[in-house]
C-alpha cells in the first residue's frame, strides 16, 4: 500500500511552502485586508512564474502537464498561507472547467493565458442569497447572448474571463466585451475580492453541450471541492498551530495555559478533526487523479471533513487567544474569515451532506 504523495509531489509541496513562507507571511495577507488591492499582485505573479498555477494544465496549452495530485499539494500550501490570490477561481474552477468541457479551440485560446497568469478567470454561479439551483437560476443564454446578474463572484472585478452557469448550460464570457457592468461586493473576507457582474446581452459561447449545464456544473464542483478541501486542511493546520503556539507562550494563574486540560483537549479535538480531514482528502485526491467511480462520494466526504476541521480550528483558535484574539491587530481573524469563506464557496456543509447521503442511497452501499 502506498497511500501517500510521492517524493516528487512532496518536493513540489516544499517549494510552494517555501515560496509562500518567504513572500506571503501574514503581514502580506494583512496588506490586502487593509489596502485597496483586490489581491496580492507579487505573490500571484510569483505563483504563475514558478509554474504552480499551470501545474495541472497540459503542456500543449502552456502548463507543466503535471496531474491533479500536484495541484492538491499546492492547494494545501495556499490554504496554510491564507494566500490572498485568485488561484482557486482561475485554476480549480475556470481552467478545470475549460479542460473538462472546452472545445479544442476554447482550450487553445484560453488555457495558455490562464496558466501563465496573463489573465484571471473565474466561475460565475451564484445569484444572490439563495444557493444556485436550476429551479431558481435566472441567467439565460440564447443566440450567443447572455443576460443575468451574478453575485458574489470571486475575483469578478478583475477577471478577464468568466465561466457562467445559466439555466440550462455553462457558457464562456469574455468580460472585456460590451454588455458587462461590475461592482465590488463587500464580504466577510476582504482578502479575497468579490464582485457583482451584470450581463446585458453580453456575447457568450457555450462551454460544453446545451442543456448539460447543471450536471456539468455539479461534476466540476465535486472536483474543485477536493482542491478546496486541501486548502481547508492547510488552513486548519495553520490555525491549530497558531493556537498551540499561543497556549505555550501565554501564562495565566502562574502557568502556561496549554497545561490546562480545557485548552489541551480543545487542541486535541482540533488535531482529531484535522487528521480525519487529511485522511479523507488523501482518498479524494486519489479518486480525482484516477477519476474513479466513487469520485463524487469521496469529494463530498473530504469536503465535509475539511470544512468541519477548519471551522473548528479557526473559531477555537480565537477562543484560545482570549481577548487579544478578538482584536484587529491579531492574526486570528484571518482564519476565521477564510474558513467561513471556503465553507460557503461551492455551497455550505448541509448541502454537501445531503448530496453525500443521496449518493450513498444510490450506490446502495448499505
Amino acid at each position, binding site marked *: *500500500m502506498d497511500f501517500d504523495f510521492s517524493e516528487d509531489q512532496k518536493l513540489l509541496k516544499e517549494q510552494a511552502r517555501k515560496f509562500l513562507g518567504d513572500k506571503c507571511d501574514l503581514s502580506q495577507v494583512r496588506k490586502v485586508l487593509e489596502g485597496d488591492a483586490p489581491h496580492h499582485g507579487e505573490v500571484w505573479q510569483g505563483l504563475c512564474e514558478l509554474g504552480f498555477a499551470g501545474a495541472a494544465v497540459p503542456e500543449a496549452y502552456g502548463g507543466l502537464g503535471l496531474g491533479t495530485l500536484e495541484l492538491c499539494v499546492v492547494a494545501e500550501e495556499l490554504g496554510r498561507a491564507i494566500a490572498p490570490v485568485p488561484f482557486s477561481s482561475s485554476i480549480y474552477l475556470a481552467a478545470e472547467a475549460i479542460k473538462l468541457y472546452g472545445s479544442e479551440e476554447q482550450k487553445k485560446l484560453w488555457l495558455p493565458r490562464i496558466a501563465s497568469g496573463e489573465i484571471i478567470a473565474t466561475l460565475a454561479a451564484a445569484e444572490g442569497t439563495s444557493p444556485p439551483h436550476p429551479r431558481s437560476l435566472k441567467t439565460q443564454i440564447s443566440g450567443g447572448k447572455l443576460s443575468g446578474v451574478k453575485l458574489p463572484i470571486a475575483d469578478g472585478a478583475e477577471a478577464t474571463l468568466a465561466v457562467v452557469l445559466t439555466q440550462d448550460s455553462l457558457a464562456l464570457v469574455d468580460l472585456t466585451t460590451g454588455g458587462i457592468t461590475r461592482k465590488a461586493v463587500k464580504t466577510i473576507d476582504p482578502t479575497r475580492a468579490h464582485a457583482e457582474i451584470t450581463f446585458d446581452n453580453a456575447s457568450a459561447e457555450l462551454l460544453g453541450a446545451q442543456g448539460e449545464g447543471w450536471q456539468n456544473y455539479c461534476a466540476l464542483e465535486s472536483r474543485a471541492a477536493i482542491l478546496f478541501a486541501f486548502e481547508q486542511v492547510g488552513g486548519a493546520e495553520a490555525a491549530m498551530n497558531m493556537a498551540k503556539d499561543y497556549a505555550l507562550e501565554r501564562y495565566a494563574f502562574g502557568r*502556561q495555559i496549554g497545561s490546562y486540560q480545557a485548552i489541551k483537549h480543545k*487542541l486535541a479535538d482540533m488535531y*482529531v478533526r484535522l*487528521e*480525519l480531514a487529511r485522511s479523507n482528502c488523501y*482518498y479524494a485526491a486519489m479518486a480525482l487523479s484516477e477519476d474513479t467511480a466513487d469520485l463524487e462520494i469521496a469529494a463530498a466526504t473530504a469536503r*465535509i471533513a475539511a470544512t468541519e476541521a477548519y471551522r473548528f480550528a479557526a473559531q477555537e483558535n480565537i477562543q484560545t487567544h482570549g481577548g487579544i484574539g478578538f482584536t484587529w491587530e491579531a492574526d486570528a481573524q484571518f482564519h476565521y474569515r477564510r474558513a467561513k469563506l471556503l465553507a460557503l464557496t461551492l455551497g455550505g456543509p448541509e448541502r454537501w451532506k445531503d448530496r453525500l*447521503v443521496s449518493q*450513498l442511497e444510490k450506490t446502495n452501499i448499505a
Partner: protein
Amino acid sequence: MNLNDTPEEAKFRAAARAWLTANARPKDKSKDRTKRVQKPESERLDSARQWQAKKAEAGYAAITWAPEYGGMGGSSIQSVIYAQEEAKFDVQGGFFDIGLGMCIPTMLAWATAEQKERYAKPALYGQEVWCQLFSEPSAGSDVAGLRTKATRDGDEWIINGQKVWTSGAQYCDYGIIVTRSDPNVAKHKGLTFFFLDMKSAGIEVRPIKQMSGESGFNEVFFTDVRVPDSQRLGAVGEGWKVALTTLMNERLAIGQGSGVDYSELLDLARSIELEDGPAIKNANVRSRLADWYVQTQGLKYTKFRTLTALSKGQTPGPESSIGKIVSGPKMQDLASFAMDLQGQGGIMDGDESVMNSAFQSQWMWAAGYRIAGGTDEILRNIVSEQVLGLPQDIRVDKGVSFNELVSNQGK
C-alpha cells in the same frame, strides 16, 4: 498513490490466503452482522485453542516474533496482511490477544532465557492463556497509584490486595502483575513487577456484572499469595519501567471497535416512517448520517496511512492515536440516535426490537468502550502532550512519597 500491495506483500498475502483456504472455512457472507449467536465460553475456548495451535505450527500465530520463540521473524505489515486475510474466514479468536499482544512481549523483554523458553511457546500454541493485572478500584487512569502490596519474605514475596477489570481471569493460567513493594517512596518508584500462576493459593476470581448485565471482566483478590522471587521481572522498585513495556504494547493490541455503523443506520432510516415522511428524507437524519459516514471513512483512510508507513518499514505517524477518540463517542451517539428515531419503540431490547437489539446493545457497551484501555480524556491528554507538545498538567503527587499522598491519608 495507490492501495496495492508491493510484489513481496502480494506474495505473502497469496501464501497466507492459500494456507487459510486449506485450513479454514470462509465466512458466510449472507449472515446478518447484527445477529449475535454466542456459544458457551468453554466451547469457544476449545476451538480457539485448536485454531491457535494450527496457526502457530504454520508460523502465522506470531509473525513478528523471532523464530526461536516460535515466530516467523516477519514484519509488521505482514502481520496486518495476515489479519486482513484471516478476518475473511470463520475462525475462533479472541482469547490470546492480551497474552500474545501484551504479556509475552513483556516476558520477552524482561524474563530470563529459561523463562522465555518455558513460557513463550505454550502461550503461542494456545496451551496456556495469560492475563494482565494492572487496574485497581482506586487506580484506573492513574494506574501507578495502585495499592496491591508485595512484601518480601526470604526467596518469596507475599501479595495482598485487589485487581479489577481483568479480562479472562476465570480461565487464565498465568498473569502479569504490578504491585507496590515500598509505600515510603514516590508513587512511581515503589512498584515491583511479577508474573504468577493464576492457580496459586490465595487467588480468588469473581466476575464483575456490568451495567449491561453481562460479565466480560473480573475482580481478582489476592490473600497472602506467595510468588517466588525468580518470577520478578525487572529490579525491585522498577516495576513502572516494566509496566511501560506492557502499556506500549496495549496501544497496538486494542483495535478499533466494531459494531453497527452508518450502513445499519441508513437501513433503519429507510424503514422508519416519521410524521413528515420516511426518516431517510429528514434533513436532520441525513446530516447526522453524513457526519458518521465521514468519521468512519476518515478512520479507515487514517489506517491506510498507518499501513503505508508500515509497508515502507517506517514508524507510523501520530495520526493513528485518533482512532478510539473518534470511534467511542461515534458508536455511542449513533446507537443512541438510532434508538431515538424509533420513538418509544426504541426502548425495546428483546425479540420485538429492531435488528436483534443491535443498537440497544451497542448503546450499552459503548459507554464502557469509551473508558476501557484509556478514557476519552486520557487519550486527549496523550494527543496534546505527545503529539502537540503541550505541557503536562501540574502534578501534586510528584516527589511525594506514596504514603503521604492526600488520596492515601487515613486509608
